[in-house]
C-alpha cells in the first residue's frame, strides 16, 4: 500500500461522508447518556474539514492531517473537538512532511493520535470514552508486522471496544454524571472512532483490490 496526498484527502472525505451518514445515529446515542449533540458536532466539523483540505493535494501528508486537526479544534467545540482535533494534529506531527504513507505509517500515526487523546482528556481504558475503541485497535496494529489483514483485525478490535462500553460505567465526560444509569448504553465517542477506523480500512481495501 502507498497513499499519496490526493489519496489521503479521498480517505478523509470518506470518513467525513460516513460521519455525515451516521449523524443522527451518533446524536441519538449521545441523547441517551449525554447532551444529544455528538453527531451534530462531528458532522459540522468534518464538513469544514472537507472544504479546508480540498485544495491541499499538493501538500505533504503531515500538513493535511494537521489541518484536519486544527479545523476540528476550531469548529467542533465540546469534548470531541479538542480530542479528535488533538488526535489528528498529533498524527500529522508523527508522519511529518512525507509525500506518501505506507502500511508501516498507520500504527505510528494512530499511536500518536491515541497519545494525543489521552494527554488531552486524561482518560484511560475502561472509562467509556473514545479510548475504549481506539486503544484496542492500536494494540492490535502494534502486535505484528502491518498488513491489510491486521488492519481488519484492528477495526474488529475497535468494534469489540464499542460493544464493551455498553457494560461499563462512564467515568469521564458528560455521561459520567449519570453514574450507574450510564450502564447498558453504547458510548457515542467510541462509536464515532470505530466508524472512522472502519472507513479508513474500507478505503484502503478498495485501493488494494
Amino acid at each position, binding site marked *: 500500500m502507498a497513499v499519496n496526498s490526493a489519496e489521503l484527502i479521498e480517505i478523509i472525505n470518506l470518513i467525513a461522508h460516513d460521519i455525515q451518514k451516521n449523524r443522527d445515529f451518533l446524536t441519538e446515542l449521545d441523547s441517551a447518556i449525554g447532551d*444529544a449533540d455528538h453527531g451534530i458536532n462531528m458532522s459540522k466539523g468534518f464538513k469544514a474539514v472537507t472544504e479546508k483540505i480540498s485544495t491541499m493535494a499538493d501538500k505533504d501528508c503531515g500538513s493535511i492531517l494537521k489541518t484536519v486537526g486544527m479545523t476540528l479544534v*476550531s*469548529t467542533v*467545540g*465540546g469534548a470531541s473537538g479538542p480530542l479528535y482535533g488533538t488526535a489528528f494534529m498529533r498524527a500529522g506531527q508523527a508522519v511529518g512532511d512525507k509525500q506518501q504513507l505506507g502500511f508501516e505509517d498507520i500504527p505510528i500515526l494512530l499511536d500518536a493520535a491515541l497519545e494525543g487523546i489521552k494527554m488531552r482528556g486524561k482518560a484511560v481504558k475502561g472509562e467509556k470514552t473514545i479510548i475504549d475503541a481506539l486503544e484496542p485497535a492500536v494494540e492490535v496494529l502494534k502486535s505484528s508486522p502491518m498488513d491489510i489483514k491486521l488492519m481488519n483485525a484492528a477495526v474488529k478490535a475497535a468494534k469489540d471496544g464499542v460493544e464493551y462500553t455498553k457494560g461499563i460505567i462512564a467515568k*469521564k465526560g*458528560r455521561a459520567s*454524571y*449519570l453514574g450507574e444509569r450510564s450502564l447498558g448504553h453504547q458510548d457515542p465517542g467510541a462509536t464515532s472512532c470505530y466508524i472512522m477506523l472502519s472507513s479508513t480500512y474500507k478505503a484502503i481495501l478498495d485501493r488494494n483490490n
Partner: protein
Amino acid sequence: MKKIINNPENVVQEMLDGMVAAYPQYVRKIDGFEVIVRANAPIKGKVALVSGGGSGHEPSHAGFVGKGMLDAGVAGAVFTSPTPDQVFEAIKAVDGGAGVLLVIKNYTGDIMNFEMAGEMAEAEGIKVASVVVNDDVAVEDSLYTSGRRGIAGTVFVHKIAGAKAEAGGTLEDVKAVAEKVIKNTRSMGMALTPCIVPAAGKPTFTLAEDEMEIGMGIHGEPGTKRTHIMQADDLVDHLMEKILDDIPYKSGDEVAVMINGLGATPLMEQFIMNRRVSEILKKNGITVYRTFVGEFMTSIEMAGASITLLKLDDEFKQLLDAQADTPAFRQL
C-alpha cells in the same frame, strides 16, 4: 417550539448583536468572533478574567462583563463549549499585561477547549491561569471521574475574583481567591420542565405533568431523582440538606445565598424558595450576609431553580460588597 427567534442557526450571533446594541456603554463584540469584552478592554495592568461556555445560560457569561466582574465572555453554540480559537481571541483582547484568569465550569469540553486556548496564549507570551468551578452537589465528587458540574456558583467566582482583580490583585492573588470561592461554594438545582435547544427544535427529555427532577444539570443532564412535584418548602428542605451537609456549613457560619431561576420560573417562586432557605439557615445558626435572587445561570427556558451557598470570611465579604457594574449584575 415556541421561541422568539429567526433562523435557529443564528441565535447566538443575533443575541450578541442585540446585547451589544443594548449595552454599548458596557461591552463590545470582537468582530468575527462570539466574544464579548469590556468596552474599555484591555485595562492596562489589571488582571483580566475570561469566562464562557455554551450559550443558553444567559445572562451568563457575557452579561457579567463589566467593572468588578469579567473582562470577556465567550459564547459557544447553545450548550456546546466554545472552541479554543474563540477563547484565545478573548484572552488576547483583554490581556492588559498582568495576565488572564480563565474561569471554567467543570465540563470536559469546556476544560479542554479553554486549556488549549490557554496554551495558545502562553505560546504568545501571555500569562494565563485557570480555575475550574464545580459547585453542583447533585453529582458526587471523585478524583477518578469528571467530578462535580459547575453551575450557578460560578457567578460568585466572577463577582469575588473580579473584585479582587479590580482592586489590583496579581494573577496569583486572583487565582487564589477564585479557588477559595470554589472551595466554599455549593449548589443544587431542580427542574419542572425541560428546555429546547433551538437547533434541535424539541426537548432533549420529558417530564410528566406531575413530575419534577431533582439535581438536574443546567444542560438537562439528569439529576439524582425524578419525583412527584413537591411543595416548595419540602423541595427546599431537600436541596438544602444536600448542600448544607456537603462542606458542611455549620452553626456560626456566615453565608451569601443565591436563588437562581433557570429561565421560566418567575421571581414569585424564587422568593417563596428564599423564604424557606432563610428559615432553614436561621434554624441552623447560620447568618445570611447577602442574598441574590434572580436569573444568573439559566437553561434557556427551563422551569426550575437552584440554590447556592457561599461560606464567607472577611475577605469574601469585602469583595462581595465591592462595586460592580455590568449589564446583568450591578452593585452600588
